[in-house]
């Protein structure tokens, strides 16, 4: 209870500070103020809430580490892993889970320190909140430019929100980079980027067959490329044509039915598409292949690509439809007024004007196809064949990442770290795609706006 009490206090103090601060400026002599009374209220609230919350958060981050150091200082001479193990068992014992061989003195120390920390935090946070309030209180005068200050605080909050996403991305990339660097110490980058064989086995015995794994990523990326191309060959034309129909030809009532139905496609879990591909589409394609005299393996790039194409139709159609609908009616009238037919108007006016958005929709669909895992696992298989034949089984980057990390492996084996190298490469590939897409969109926007 005492853990969350400071937060409750901060909220209550904040509400109180708002009314108190507002009342204080309201009592001042009548004159034009650099802010509404509400701005002075928010000024008081911000000083009461923000520093106290920061202290609370910082405390939560730091106190665990300090307590751990104090507790473990009674047990010198342990290695890092041993110390972690010991501390976890002490924590478990403190939480009431019986563990053998736990030094009871340390458990008691831990409980005592935790109590102390909670109480001290409560006192400190409350004090900071009160201090913040009085700091604001004595500064609230008619001269205080409360409006500017509150606006600035809002600006800072918005800025922080916008950089959180960026910082997260940076963090993800850094963690990938570190692991990839370790991987490249074991496997040469040359082999990874140009090797034509992918067989990430780790020998259990010295004399095992295929004892040394092969980490040439070309077949894996080729598989991703093949499946993505097949998927886009399906989704591109179908999605674009359905968007044109919906935006330009469909009666509003037809549109009101078809558009949501299409968007439902995007809501079907991909694993369900996977079933369909693996259990219905792939076998019937194999049978069809037998009838036609073709060899189609029961797990094929074609089956996975077709189903994935169906899955990403809504990404293409829905976005393109929105963009085309937003092309102003006046442009269409201008075209019709010159004697153009509906299809001429679409081809020469609507589509060019909508190009940036349509490219955006395609790029979204492509990155969706590249990132898709489940359908490929189920329909395309795991065999890393280097082939351009859509009737054969292939595998993709995401599938390999998933299979490499499934199961019990040490996190420092080549096999596991290969997943990070694949992930990082995939990250840069999609990044490059997005950059290209943005450039295309910008180029056309400059020309067409």
């Amino acid at each position, binding site marked *: 209870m005492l853990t969350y009490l400071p937060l409750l206090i901060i909220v209550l103090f904040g509400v109180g500070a708002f009314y108190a601060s507002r009342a204080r400026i309201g009592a001042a002599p009548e004159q034009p103020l650099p802010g509404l009374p509400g701005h002075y209220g928010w000024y008081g609230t911000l000083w009461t809430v923000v520093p106290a919350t920061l202290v609370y958060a910082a405390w939560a981050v730091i106190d665990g580490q300090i307590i751990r150091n104090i507790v473990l200082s009674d047990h010198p001479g342990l290695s890092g892993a041993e110390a972690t193990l010991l501390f976890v068992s002490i924590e478990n014992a403190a939480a009431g889970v019986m563990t053998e061989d736990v030094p009871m003195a340390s458990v008691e120390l831990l409980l005592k320190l935790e109590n102390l920390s909670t109480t001290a935090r409560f006192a400190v946070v409350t004090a900071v909140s009160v201090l913040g309030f009085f700091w604001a209180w004595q500064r609230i005068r008619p001269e205080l430019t409360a409006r500017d200050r509150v606006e600035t605080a809002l600006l800072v909050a918005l800025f922080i929100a916008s950089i959180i996403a960026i910082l997260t991305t940076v963090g993800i990339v850094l963690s990938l980079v570190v692991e990839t660097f370790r991987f490249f110490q074991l496997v040469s980058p040359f082999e990874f980027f140009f090797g034509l064989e992918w067989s990430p086995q780790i020998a259990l015995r010295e004399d095992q067959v295929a004892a040394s794994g092969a980490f040439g990523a070309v077949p894996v990326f080729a598989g991703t490329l093949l499946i993505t191309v097949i998927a886009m060959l399906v989704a591109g034309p179908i999605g674009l044509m359905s968007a044109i129909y919906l935006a330009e030809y469909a*009666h509003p009532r037809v549109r009101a039915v078809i558009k949501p139905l299409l968007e439902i496609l995007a809501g079907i879990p991909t694993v369900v598409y996977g079933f369909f591909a693996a259990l219905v589409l792939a076998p019937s394609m194999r049978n069809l292949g037998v009838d036609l005299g073709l060899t189609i393996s029961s797990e094929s790039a074609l089956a996975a690509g077709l189903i994935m194409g169906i899955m990403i139709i809504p990404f293409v159609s829905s976005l393109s439809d929105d963009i085309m609908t937003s092309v*102003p009616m*006046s*442009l*269409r*009238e*201008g*075209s*019709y*007024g*010159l*004697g*153009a*037919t509906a299809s*001429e108007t679409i081809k*020469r*006016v609507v589509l*060019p*004007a909508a190009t940036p958005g349509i490219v955006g929709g395609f790029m979204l669909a492509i990155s969706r196809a590249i990132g898709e895992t489940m359908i490929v696992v189920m329909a395309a298989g795991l065999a890393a064949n280097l082939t351009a034949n859509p009737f054969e089984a292939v595998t993709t980057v995401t599938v390999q990442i998933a299979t490499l990390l499934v199961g019990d492996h040490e996190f420092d084996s080549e096999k596991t770290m290969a997943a990070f190298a694949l992930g990082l490469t995939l990250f840069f590939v999609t990044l490059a795609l997005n950059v290209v897409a943005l450039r295309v969109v910008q180029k056309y926007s400059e*020309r*067409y*706006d």
Partner: protein
Amino acid sequence: MVITSVSSNPQPTLVARELSVFYGEKQAVFDVDLDIMPREVTAFIGPSGCGKSTLLRCFNRMNDLIEICRTTGSMLLDGHDIAGPDVDVVQLRSRIGMVFQKPNPFPKSVYDNVAYGPRLHGLAPSRSDLDELVETSLRRAGIWDEVKDRVDQPGTSLSGGQQQRLCIARAIAVRPDVLLMDEPCSALDPIATATIEELIDELRSEYTIIIVTHNMQQAARVSQKTAFLNLGRLIEFDETTKIFTNPSEQSTQDYITGRFG
């Protein structure tokens, strides 16, 4: 009827008889009879919502684009029916060009804007023909000197008045007989408006022009005939000078003296 303008052809270019337009259940235009004479500017005036734009858009069948819109009565262009269901709308619209209220150049270059219609209708077989047609149209719309060095730049980068003249050039590039103008100056500043009005006066020598306007001074300045509409009915249609000096109907008098509208 006294005909003040010099006209070699006494036959009307456009004829409307008992023309009515409905939006669903609501009737917007009631039984309009109208003769538009060639090589003249005819102005449609009237208060907002009186049906003047709707009436204008009948002549090139733009109302067809509105699903719930229905037209009855007859319309003739040079004696040929243009109201029936079998009329080739593409052909009709190449003979009756339109300029819209808000300048609506396509998001293409100045050149491609003007070349749009000729390309659709195959009017210029070779590139040099097309170049010539584009230049002639831009000259006729009085904008050539301003854009001749930047015909490859986007039409949307021009000023509002230039955009509207570009739209006029685009309309006359398909060599129409009639130009419909739906409040062509309402989005423009006074200087650009004056330029367009001069242009309309010049274009009168080659085209039959119908202009919808909110601005009565504009109607008086540019038109030879004026039609006053109110509540979907054609109240009075006569020489512009007569409408503005000695109208026959009391409501015309009230409107032009600013008593309503």
